């Protein structure tokens, strides 16, 4: 990752936005709940801002446009898979156009706490068509770096339970009816998500980071790799 990649959208992009006008850096951290994403991003923001670099953070379900409505709809479990997929895509697009693109234009470092890959993996696991997903997310900008924090499902269970004493309905894939038992469902679902990520890795070339290790060990590796991306300016 030492050479600077030309800016491009994965597909059609956003009408009237020229990728070459986007400076800054787009850094994505992917991984399941309990993989340490948020902790790592907080540390990275601290590090980058201390060194005088402006940052902006985005993440799933944080858009002004639909986050509240999406949250509400998920509580009722009434969303079918295409609707859920498109709802998340709307949330992503709103943040892309209103936060990410303007920030990059202004030369900021955008740290994305999950990006289209989680959304695609979730939809793939739910049987959505890959071609359909690629077209849909052709609006997305190719990041400068994508780090996938890989943690074994068994370790994820331990971390999630230690944090909140329960396993999240959606993160356990309970809507898929894999098992009535949330514990079994979580393990099966997270393994399926990992294989989806591994398949996508071939296309999108993520950097897979072993996040079974300590916070500081993982952060050290991330800093080193991000430094290389920043130096490539």
């Amino acid at each position, binding site marked *: 990752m030492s050479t600077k990649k030309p800016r491009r959208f994965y597909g059609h992009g956003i009408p009237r936005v020229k990728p070459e006008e986007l400076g800054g850096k787009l850094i994505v951290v992917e991984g399941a709940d309990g993989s340490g994403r948020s902790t790592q991003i907080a540390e990275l923001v601290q590090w980058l801002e201390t060194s005088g670099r402006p940052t902006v953070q985005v993440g799933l379900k944080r858009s002004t446009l639909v986050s509240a409505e999406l949250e509400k709809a998920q509580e009722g479990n009434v969303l079918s898979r295409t609707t859920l997929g498109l709802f998340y895509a709307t949330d992503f697009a709103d943040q892309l156009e209103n936060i990410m693109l303007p920030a990059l234009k202004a030369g900021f470092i955008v740290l994305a706490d999950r990006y289209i890959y989680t959304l695609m993996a979730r939809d793939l696991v739910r049987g959505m068509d890959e071609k359909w997903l690629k077209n849909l997310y*052709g*609006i997305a900008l190719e990041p400068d770096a994508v780090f996938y924090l890989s943690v074994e499902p068994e370790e994820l269970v331990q971390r999630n339970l230690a944090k909140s004493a329960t396993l999240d309905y959606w993160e356990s894939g309970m809507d898929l009816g894999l098992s009535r038992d949330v514990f079994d469902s979580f393990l099966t679902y997270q393994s399926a998500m990992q294989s989806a990520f591994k398949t996508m890795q071939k296309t999108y070339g993520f950097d897979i980071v072993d996040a079974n290790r300590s916070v500081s060990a993982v952060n050290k590796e991330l800093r080193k790799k991000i430094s290389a991306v920043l130096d490539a300016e």
Partner: protein
Amino acid sequence: MKSFAELNFPGRLIAVEGLDGSGKSTQIYLLKRWLEAEGIKVYFSEWNSSEIVKAATSKGKKRELLTPTTFSLIHATDFADRYERHLLPLLRAGYIVLCDRYIFTAFARDVTRGCPPDWVRGNYSFAARPDLTMFFKADLEVSLNRILEGRPKLKFFEAGMDLNLSKDPYESFKIFQGRILEQYLALSKEFDFVTMNANVNVEKQQVIVRKLVSERIDLKKFKRRSPLPLPPALQVEIETLEIEEDKAA
């Protein structure tokens, strides 16, 4: 793109398309009333009406938060919700589903707003083609007058103000509608629309609509079953009572 009949759905889907003010909503409403009176299983679904998504869309419109991309995606989300939760099960159950606007509205409108046609079509590729699409084609002036006379205050997105076509909402609306009409005309051939002359009066149009629908769809196949007869046990009891009374007399 296959129709519901070609996909062996027991139900049939009829869509109406056209500009605002083309009279399509009145026509589909009158069609619905007729089908209901004929005892046919019928369901009506309107563009942008999903209970789950509608709130977000109206917030986005009111606060002018929408871009061409999010405008397109939020309407696709709304459509997907209605499609998966209502339209598909109803079509499986042998209903005639009437749609006031279908995916062609997005094809025409979102592309006019600058979204790439392939992208919009790809996003809606989960949807099957209607068994009948009626396109209500009125002269642009007729549609514009119907809207502009009755409802003088135009909403921001409705007038296409997000496209910066004109500072004047009326002027912007006219240009915007003209461009959408061009898109519709191009779609018309590709997707086999039946073009309805929306300049003639409402009653005459409805006669044509009903004739077309009964020619295209074998309506008697979509009738509700007649109500169940009274439980026989109860009738027997009444008869027995009467007989006993007779004896007493």
